[in-house]
């Protein structure tokens, strides 16, 4: 079974409208729905788990603040959240400057396979991909995470990244091709090591 998370725009807008009126339930519902995507988006680009957690929860604190103010999002909540997350990331990089691509910490996917051999292979391959992803330019990482990782539409991705559709179309191709290439290199590196 595939669990499909489609942007059900009417439902999302309704939830957002309730949240704007101060409905706490609606706000918490938004949080429960969107925390994981936002966290994953950030976590893939930030090495430190605590930092990722801070940045992700800050996105929702910002939402609370904006709902109380005049610049509350009116629609496309998901895009708004990702945009804020992206800004947070940019600020974060601006502050820390250096961005380590090393540290292959315990990024072990939940595996249903108990065979240690299989687990090892799975872990290696996921780590490899993660590491390869980190080697790409930031906008390439972003487009890959949004389009493939979060299954966002071309238009949504373009809105979040502030580019036009044509630019995203070509960026997503270049990003994928580069990742493919880097993956090969990382694989060789692993093979030698």
């Amino acid at each position: 079974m595939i669990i499909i998370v489609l942007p059900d725009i009417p439902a999302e807008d309704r939830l957002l409208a309730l949240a704007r009126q101060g409905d706490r339930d609606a706000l918490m519902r938004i949080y429960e729905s969107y925390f994981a995507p936002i966290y994953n988006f950030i976590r893939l680009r930030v090495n430190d788990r605590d930092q990722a957690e801070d940045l992700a929860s800050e996105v929702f604190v910002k939402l609370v603040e904006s709902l109380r103010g005049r610049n509350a999002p009116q629609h496309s909540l998901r895009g708004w959240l990702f945009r804020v997350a992206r800004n947070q990331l940019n600020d974060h990089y601006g502050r820390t400057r250096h961005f380590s691509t090393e540290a292959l910490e315990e990024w072990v996917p939940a595996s249903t396979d108990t065979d240690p051999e299989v687990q090892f292979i799975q872990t290696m391959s996921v780590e490899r991909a993660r590491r390869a992803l980190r080697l790409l330019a930031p906008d390439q990482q972003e487009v890959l995470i949004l389009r493939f990782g979060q299954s966002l539409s071309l238009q949504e991705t373009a809105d979040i990244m502030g580019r036009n559709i044509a630019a995203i179309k070509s960026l997503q191709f270049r990003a994928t091709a580069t990742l493919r290439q880097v993956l090969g290199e990382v694989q060789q590196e692993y093979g030698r090591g």
Partner: protein
Amino acid sequence: MANQDFLNAFNDSVDRINAGQTVEDCMRLYPRHAAVLRPLLETGRLIDRLSAPSLEVEQAKTRGRMRLEEALRAPLPQKRTTPFRPYLNLAAAVLVIVFVATFGAGNAAQSSLPGDTLYGLKQITEGVQLSLSGDPALRASFNERRQDEIKQILAMNRVADVAFEGTVTVITGTTWLVDELPLQVAEQTAGAAGIAPGDVVRVVAATTSGGELKASEITLIETGDQPPLPTPSATLIPPSSTPRPTETATLTPTPSPTVTNEPDATATITAAPTQTRPVVAVGTATMTAQPPTAVPSATPRPTRAPSQTPLPTRTATLIPTPISPTVCATMQPSNWNGYRVQVGDTLSGLAANRGITLEQLMQINCLTDPRFIVVGDLLILPRASSTATHIPDDAGTIGTQEDNGSSNDNSNDTSSDNSSVDDNGGGSSNDNSNDNSGVDDSGGTDNSNDNSGVDDNGGHGSDG
């Protein structure tokens, strides 16, 4: 290298894979590009596997929730005055100038204390804000402000007339404690007789140059032995808890009862059963601590599914603690029948298609989150008027027959942009091959095709 045609093919393939189709489906659609397309799509699909371990996400979510609740508790920012608009005509401009002058002074008055020239204006503006919003939280916040002011005045040994509300906590002779304020109550003070600790009162008093607060009139708002409402002045909290007890109550973001003794105030309490903060539990345990399940009281409980209030927000299932969302039991109205969720379906789309509201659909099907549908799930929907291809009520098997039916449904029912999803599905790739490619544990044979070159089955559950 990258011509437009290829870029479009690649983009379309990404969309299809995101909608649940396989790499193979895309290969069939774009045989010309297959050689380049396949490795790229397989690479892209790797990203999908990189979501953080669900335990980690859950932990982060729990901590983030606390931060969010903290942010919700933060006081609301001050309301801004209406900006001046220069293009208004003269008559309106005069009015606006008066308005701005009033509110401008109102802002200056905000920092004034009882006895100051501007203090009356402050109370008037507050009264306007209060009557405009009718918000009990705002009211509580004003009362809290009032008490703070009184403390300031007492500290400054200034003489002023004051009024505030609070709960009588201690009575020893002529010295009372109302909330945290020491109050001198002479025996002949109007309304003082019969007041007992625990009562909520409105006090008219005067401060003296000696730093005392002398009551001139006391009005009983609510007796202490009543089932206590979560009053804005949070006197239900043990006295040792915080120096400024009113703080907790001003936070309640949802409608909560006012201090005034209107009997209908109780009706609004049950509408907000989510306030399960332990601090308030002393007074409000009977109203908040219970899970909103089968209490057959006169007041409507939110999560009762069969009630006629269809708002999904009342279900409160997202609150982590003790509320059990399992009260709902699916029921099937007479002219409704079963429907299997297909790729591209959305609940609101289905609801609109069948002429019912999203709330009705969710209520009948016991759904709590309108955005999560699982492909293959059985929903109960009103019988479609035009098509006869729907799954019969007792549909319990997944088979090719259904797949045929579903491709028909796509063209008929869903006008969503994913309606093209199954167009080419055709003979060889049935839904099962789609399913297996997304989730790893079933390890179907199709996976070997999809993931060649990548780790097969490399899975964590990509369940988000």
